[in-house]
């Protein structure tokens, strides 16, 4: 049974003009994939290949031109937007910008609970404390403000915000890009542990092929809004078929070999 199933999703970005005909500036798709629970899908591609746009389409920030998204066999559209808010959660690329500077972390985490659940104040507070511990922070952190935390802690808060509604799928737009290597590996391990414990479907976008190879089960390679190649991670890294994929994998291999030779 597929947790999330995407069928031929497309999107067109047009220039808006009153006088001339609108022109298509960006064409995405068609993109199709499915993710089972506990599975990780990585979306890889160069800049402006439509990766972030795909993430926005999945969480519902943009409306697709055509195509369907199924969640446990139920189609997601405008009528069941609350289901989407609840079941698909997004982690933004820059965790610093995605936290409100004027609110304590507790009230940032309380907002999704207040809007999407019927819990009372006491239950909300205990759930917030529980989630903060789950991501490796302390209950006292709910009284902190954004500027008091380090980058790694902010990333954990962003993760807590995604996890607090007990979602089925997490979409992450380059969640590890802004972190330094040691904090990054901490965050990756934390995510993998939580995914194993909770059985989440995890869709993430990354430049870092090392992490992709480490954690993902499936990979989609994108270029200029089109899917170039998709399949199991092992297959793609060992026997890339497409020219572009070959180039990506080769450059990654060269980087690793270079590091090994230096030692």
């Amino acid at each position, binding site marked *: 049974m597929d947790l999330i199933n995407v069928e031929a999703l497309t999107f067109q970005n047009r220039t808006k003009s009153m006088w001339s005909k609108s022109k298509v500036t960006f064409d995405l798709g068609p993109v199709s994939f499915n993710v089972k629970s506990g599975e990780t899908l990585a979306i890889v591609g160069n800049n402006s290949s439509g990766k972030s746009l795909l993430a926005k389409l999945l*969480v519902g920030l943009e409306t697709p031109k055509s195509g369907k998204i199924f969640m446990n066999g139920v189609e997601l559209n405008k009528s069941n937007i*609350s289901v989407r808010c609840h079941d698909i959660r*997004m982690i933004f690329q820059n965790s610093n910008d*995605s936290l*409100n500077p004027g609110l304590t972390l507790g009230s940032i985490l309380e907002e999704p609970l207040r*809007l*999407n659940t019927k819990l009372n104040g006491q239950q909300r507070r205990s759930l917030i404390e529980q989630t903060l511990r789950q991501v490796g922070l302390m209950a006292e952190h709910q009284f902190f*403000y954004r*500027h008091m935390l380090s980058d790694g802690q902010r990333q954990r808060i962003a993760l807590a915000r995604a996890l607090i509604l007990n979602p089925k799928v997490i979409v992450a737009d380059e969640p590890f890009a802004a972190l330094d290597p040691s904090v990054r590996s901490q965050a990756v391990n934390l995510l993998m542990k939580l995914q194993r414990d909770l059985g989440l479907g995890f869709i993430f976008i990354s430049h870092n092929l090392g992490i992709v190879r480490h954690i993902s089960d499936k990979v989609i390679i994108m270029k200029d809004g089109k899917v170039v190649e998709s399949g199991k991670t092992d297959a793609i890294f060992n026997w890339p078929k497409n020219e572009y994929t070959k180039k990506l994998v080769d450059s990654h291999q060269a980087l690793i070999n270079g590091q090994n030779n230096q030692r």
Partner: protein
Amino acid sequence: MQQSSLYQEEHHPSPLQYTWMEFKNNHIAVAGLFCFAFFLIITVFCPLLAPFDPNMQQTGDLMIPPAWDPNGGISHVFGTDALGRDLLSRIIYGCRMTFGISLLLVIVAMLLGVGLGALAGMSRGFRSSFLNHTLDSIQAIPTLLIAIIIIAILGPGLVNSMWAIALALIPQFMHQTRDFVRHELSKEYIMAAKLDGASKTHIFAHSILPNMGEMLVVQATLALSISILDISALGFLKLGAQAPSSELGAMLLEGIDVAYIAPWTIALPGGALFMMIISINLVGDGLRSALRNRLLH
């Protein structure tokens, strides 16, 4: 009493505390704040502080100089005016009128301006741009001029001048609010709130408003000094508060007739006005730089 702290606790101030810490370092601004508090106390407790009724005419004591003058007496510390009214009491009541009314007007203008500005900022298309461009063009005219135009229609009087000044102050709040909301809406944390399923009103009330407090305080101090100047200017021009009332601008106008014989009847109300405006501007300026420094950290 425990003197040393046992635990090495890091102190993490909230954004508001941080602003106060920055503000405290600016001593001139703190002096301005004390001056501001002094006027606030006078405004609230003026019936207890004033020694005489401000409109009581003592026909035997016309134009007595202030206490520091060789001819002055201690019973009238600031002297009396041409009609024998105690100047200290009149200035105290004048502070209440000018300062208190201005404070009231700024609060009213702020509530209306922020409401309309939020409406303009959160909506798109024709409604937003109509509100925006209309009020932008009104903002190009000085508030005093708008107030005079409104008074020309409504007729002179204190209540009419209050209406006029409140209406003239609204566009500034609206413009600032709209700009701020527009700026914040493009940020990622608003997107995150949208993904939580928040409606537009919820986004404004819970995500944008907590960040807007400081902008509002700075704008309110600016508006307060403008409103004090306008109220007293209209009083001076005989368009606002009328003659027997102890409004500071109207007192200046009365003093003009006897300026050469009794200069204190102009100097003292003028000085009070001067202190009021300078303290407000010092506080506003201190707040602005405190906020700027806070953002740099």
